[in-house]
């Protein structure tokens, strides 16, 4: 299954090791393929104060068959579409558009704008805790 993890979940997962977000990151592998846009990688690394931390972060996406950063810009028409689907801020619409564009099954986010406002059938939006509960019960 392909998933995209929002930066707020990624950051929580790397610095609060007892969180649902941390357990989610631990699950990434051949059965749970992680795809994020460059924007999310930039957001995470902008909040890492040490160069070695940034290097460690990018090593997570180096030569793995199940973790990818996508550099290509999301098509403009898809960003416009996601503005219309409940994400008025273009930066949020970009993330929604990305999730559809790379065909993930779930966008994992704690951001209420995604969880509450986004209306799409292209993928599901769940917070990390709910995703984990459903994953462990094989409900996804």
């Amino acid at each position, binding site marked *: 299954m392909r998933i995209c993890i929002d*930066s707020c979940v990624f*950051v929580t997962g790397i610095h609060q090791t007892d969180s649902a977000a941390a357990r989610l990151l631990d699950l990434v592998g051949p059965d749970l393929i992680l795809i994020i846009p460059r*924007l999310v990688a*930039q957001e995470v690394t902008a909040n890492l104060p040490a160069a070695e*931390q940034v290097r460690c972060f990018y090593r997570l996406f180096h030569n793995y068959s199940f973790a990818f950063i996508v550099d290509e810009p999301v098509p403009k028409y898809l960003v416009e579409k996601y503005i219309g689907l409940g994400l008025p801020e273009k930066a949020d619409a970009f993330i929604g558009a990305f999730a559809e564009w790379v065909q993930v099954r779930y966008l994992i986010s704690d951001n209420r704008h995604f969880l509450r406002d986004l209306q799409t059938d292209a993928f599901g939006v769940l917070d990390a805790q709910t995703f984990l509960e459903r994953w462990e019960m094989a409900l996804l």
Partner: protein
Amino acid sequence: MDERTVSIELPQRLYQDLEFLAAQDQTDPVEMIARLVALACERQAWRRNLTELREEIRRHGGLSVGTTKEQVVERLRQTRRQIFEAEYAHLYR
């Protein structure tokens, strides 16, 4: 190429599952084991990298992104706005 071999005994049911998997991928059980081992190694390496990153963050006293979920979300939204405006917005005007 190293062609030394070892023999192992598997429960019959496990070997049947292995043969089934191999057939699905149009390969043989030995190649199937090699692929599964490679994937398991990759996954272990990912977990090691993740642990290294977490250790690095812990050694530097954590991240200044807030303590509650709401604070983390708001901090990352600010970061998103800044980066998007600086590097992406011109693509979507």
